């Protein structure tokens, strides 16, 4: 049954044998993917094969990007468009769409569908208490996660306020998953219904999934879900600060008896890079390089930098690229903190308020997608109305037309950012006005361009560096392949000395890999041809020696 037909097999010629073996067929799988394993294409192949057989899939990920990338690879790679029998999106939006909105009233006592609105929830909170400082425990009590001091009675007050807000129909963004879990726990019939709505739930970036979300998946599995596929790499879990829990993910995989399959071929990095990163990670065999640069023998480079000279690092990376005569179309300096990033870049970047993000994204995009339209539509609605219109008050075709008119009349993205923003704001107002009932005026949120934008060129938002070396955060580069990477180990007050913690597995290979090391590992494994690790000048000789033992060539 689950064996792909010869016809199907032939069509996935873009995949290697081991990729086909890992992703096609079977059910209830934990697919662990090494960096550069071609995870997106591989999973897309599975999705295409399933959808072609008429299966209904939910394709979920922690961030919006993961699942959408797979969906788009399914369209572009295999010509299979996902229709509304399938669901593609974040775990959060999935749980909201199928549980919280239709059934939230059953566990909160609200008389209307629940809406996520942190501001309204905060308004219902007692003075001096911040709603975001309280999170739900598994037993549905609240715990304080803020940084200030608190009185013992605060939790009761916070809980009362949270319950009252939910009764009125408003919840915090984070509560969505908790409420979804309560629905699954208290209403087995609904859990069974959702479990049978989809033939398979695929969770990408599973290692970034938090405990409550994992608990939801567990409930769905127990309610009769036919197949759960977790895709991820524990080593790349870098979202522990949001509650991600690789251990609990592992526990879920065990509970659901997921069969472990591995994507071990690295289609990104050279074997020289694979060998070194495996040692840094510790206690694993190196990935098998299988990509176009597999035989490029440039050993990773270790350099020391002076903190006052960080702004020279991009130039240095370019120099290495030139010295080796590499044809590198993407070059990045990767750092953990934004602040260090600013220092390296030598200039601060403009802050972009929430409402402007979709405008800038649409203005700078090479190709407009459905997502651009959706975001602009919701921006127009927020601008036009202070209260969201009901289904019947909203003419969707009119809204789509307004968004289209806005896009076609966009001012060219040039001049200072403020000049552009001023034109964009009036274009938004005009497009939003078209949605109004004649005789009424705009009552929604006004767009205000920050005055500081006069100091930035519009182009500064687009390409950053003249010579093509980008400066990005490790989190921002997750999932990307970059020809030449310089990973910068920082010293800071808020975290340990990174050069040392990233060498922890080199000192003790069987030690458990911690979140600091995982972060470094993600940074190192972005590189395709050239990898440079830059450590502070203050780094001790014993640490330097550890890196040398891993195969880094010191310069």
């Amino acid at each position, binding site marked *: 049954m689950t064996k792909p037909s010869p016809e199907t097999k032939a069509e996935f010629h873009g995949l290697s044998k081991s990729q086909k073996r890992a992703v096609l067929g079977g059910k209830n799988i934990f697919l662990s993917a090494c960096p550069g394993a071609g995870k997106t294409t591989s999973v897309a192949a599975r999705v295409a094969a399933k959808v072609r057989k008429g299966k209904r899939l939910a394709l979920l990920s922690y961030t919006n990007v993961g699942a959408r990338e797979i969906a788009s690879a399914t369209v572009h790679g295999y010509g299979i468009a996902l229709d509304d029998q399938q669901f593609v999106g974040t775990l959060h939006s999935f749980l909201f769409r199928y549980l919280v909105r*239709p059934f939230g009233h059953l566990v909160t006592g609200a008389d209307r569908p629940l809406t996520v609105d942190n501001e309204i929830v905060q308004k219902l909170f007692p003075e001096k208490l911040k709603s975001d400082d309280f999170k739900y425990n598994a037993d549905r009590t609240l715990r304080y996660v803020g940084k200030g001091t608190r009185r013992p009675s605060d939790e009761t007050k916070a809980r009362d306020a949270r319950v009252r807000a939910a009764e009125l129909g408003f919840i915090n963004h984070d509560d969505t998953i908790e409420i979804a879990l309560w629905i699954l726990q208290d209403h087995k019939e609904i859990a069974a219904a959702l479990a049978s709505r989809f033939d398979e739930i695929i969770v990408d970036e599973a290692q970034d999934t938090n405990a409550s979300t994992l608990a939801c998946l567990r409930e769905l599995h127990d309610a009769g879900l036919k197949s759960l596929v977790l895709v991820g790499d524990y080593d790349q879990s870098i979202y522990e600060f949001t509650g991600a829990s690789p251990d609990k993910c592992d526990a879920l995989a065990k509970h659901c008896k997921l069969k472990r399959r591995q994507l071990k071929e690295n289609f990104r990095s050279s074997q020289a890079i694979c060998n070194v990163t495996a040692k840094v990670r510790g206690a694993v065999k190196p990935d098998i390089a299988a990509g176009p640069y597999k035989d490029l023998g440039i050993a990773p480079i270790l350099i020391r930098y002076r903190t006052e000279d960080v702004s020279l690092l991009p130039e240095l990376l370019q120099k290495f690229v030139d010295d080796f005569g590499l044809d590198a179309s993407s070059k990045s300096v990767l750092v953990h903190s934004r602040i260090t990033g600013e220092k390296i870049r030598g200039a601060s970047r403009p802050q972009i308020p929430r409402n402007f993000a979709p405008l800038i994204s649409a203005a700078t995009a090479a190709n407009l997608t459905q997502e651009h339209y959706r975001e602009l539509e919701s921006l127009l609605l927020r601008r036009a109305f202070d209260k969201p219109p009901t289904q019947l008050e909203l003419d969707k075709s009119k809204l789509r037309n307004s968004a289209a008119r806005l896009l076609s009349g966009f001012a060219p993205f040039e001049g200072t950012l403020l000049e552009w923003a001023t034109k964009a704001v009036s274009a938004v107002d005009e497009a939003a006005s078209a949605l109004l009932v004649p005789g009424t005026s705009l009552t929604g949120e006004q767009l205000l361009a920050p005055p500081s934008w006069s100091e930035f060129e519009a182009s500064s938002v687009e390409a950053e560096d003249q010579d093509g070396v980008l400066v990005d955060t490790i989190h921002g580069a997750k999932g990307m392949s970059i020809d030449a990477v310089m990973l910068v180990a920082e010293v800071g007050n808020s975290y340990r000395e990174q050069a040392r913690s990233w060498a922890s597995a080199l000192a003790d290979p069987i030690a458990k890999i911690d979140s600091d090391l995982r972060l470094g590992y993600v940074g190192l494994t972005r590189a395709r041809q050239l990898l440079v690790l830059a450590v502070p000048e203050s780094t001790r000789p014993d640490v330097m020696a550890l890196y040398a033992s891993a195969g880094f060539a010191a310069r």
Partner: protein
Amino acid sequence: MRIETLTIAGFRGIDTTIEFAPTLALVAGANNSGKTSIIDAIRSLLQPFAEGLGNRWISASDFTRVKNGNPIEDLEISAVFADIPAKHQGRLISILAPSLGSGYGRLTLRSRMNQDGRPLTRWSGGDLGLNDVESIARDSIRFIYMPALRDASADLRPGPSNKLANLVSAHAPIGHADRKKLVDIMTAANIDLAAVDAIITTATSIQARLSGMTGAGPYAHTSELQFTEARFERIIASLQSLAGSSPSTSRLSENGLGYNNLLYVSVLLALLETDSAIPLNVLLVEEPESHLHPQLQSLLLKYLQSLTDATTQVIATTHSPQFASAAEVKRLTVLRRAAHPASTTAHFLANAPLSARSSNHLRRFLDLTKSTMLFSDSVILVEGIAELILFPALALTRGISLAETGITVVSVDGLAFDPFISVFENGGIPLRCAVVSDSDPTPSELDENGSDQFALPSATATKLKGRDGGNIRVVLATRTFEWDLAYVNFEKPSVLIDALEAIRPRVADRLRAAKFADASEFADGLLDAVSKVKGPFAQALADSIEESEAQIVVPAYVMDAINFAGDLE
């Protein structure tokens, strides 16, 4: 899975909730009671089985109710589904309504009239009626519509709308070996055909003329003679059903409309059962009685009642007392459009306070004539044929036309009134119902020695009187209808005696000659004279009242019943 209730607010002026029986629901009602509107509401709410099979969109004319002189802006049609099996709850998750109970769902259509005169229609679902409905859910509930006046043979004849094609397709899905078999048969037939001299000659002579017209240039065209193109879709579309009394089946055009309709229903029911992935198919049938004679109506109904397929629900409207009378009472939903308030109301007879026993009684006795009470505005229930004939005539002498007032007189033919009254009590059809009975004891209530207890109303009459109240008014004759009629006409008895003359001339003469001490004695005498001929006597009396406009006094209790039923008090 089934539709349990349909709630309509504003659509064509209807504001009501209609309950439907499972598997087969019959919606009975007089003309203009809203039957078609209910079918149309379901067609607007649900998806058709296939494109073109009765799709209906909300249109401006559906917003017709006038409120404060303005047409309404919003309308709503909402169905509650019950018994959704667990295996289908996944695809229907966006309409599940757990607050209503396990296995319940709700689908709601809301439409708003825009300023530009176009209705904007949205579907939503769930407990709160506000959840976005997934297309997978909407596609899971489908209807097939059979309008009242249809040419069933058109849908069964070769051509693009051929329903048989759908059915054959369902039994031979893509990849099925039978597809190739059919194509092979047709290819072989076409080859054989092309070898027949007459065909070759015909084709050549057509081709010669065609070429003469088009020339051999760019407009040249070739013609051929074939049974049909040897492609699966074409072959099955060219199939036709033959039906008739075996052994010689006949072509559709040779059958009556009635049999073709039965054939059509058979094809549809077979088609509905082919797709087990669909949790609910609703077959909407308007007036299944059209074109069918009474015996076939009963047979069709009996068959439909025997259906047990949990994924098909037949909702049929009828204004045929014949069809209604053959139905199980619990399947009937009766629609009324009363004058006040001027809106349709629906009454599900399964909710009437009928015991299982009364329900069976009713089913047995609700024959053609009695079931007319389901289609009337108000009812006078009487004992027998005499009242049935004379009440309209007597009312007319007081200037009241029972027909125009909407009062139907129904005779229970000497049966117990009980189950009939229950139909109109709380939970049943809220009609004004007057019950006219005698105070006479029945023979079984007399003492063994037959002693006279006329001074008191009988036990049955007393019990009956206890049902008085609300919509029900029980009036009793002092003794019996004829006795009371004679009693009040004692002063001028000629109208009664003249009527008797026609049937029993000698008895009439004797009565005319006799001297009676009082009205009571005369009434005894007349009752005695007509006791064996109550029907013919009533007939003769009605004739003389209507034709000669003879003067007659109407007993007070009769007027009481008429005034109550017609709300004329």
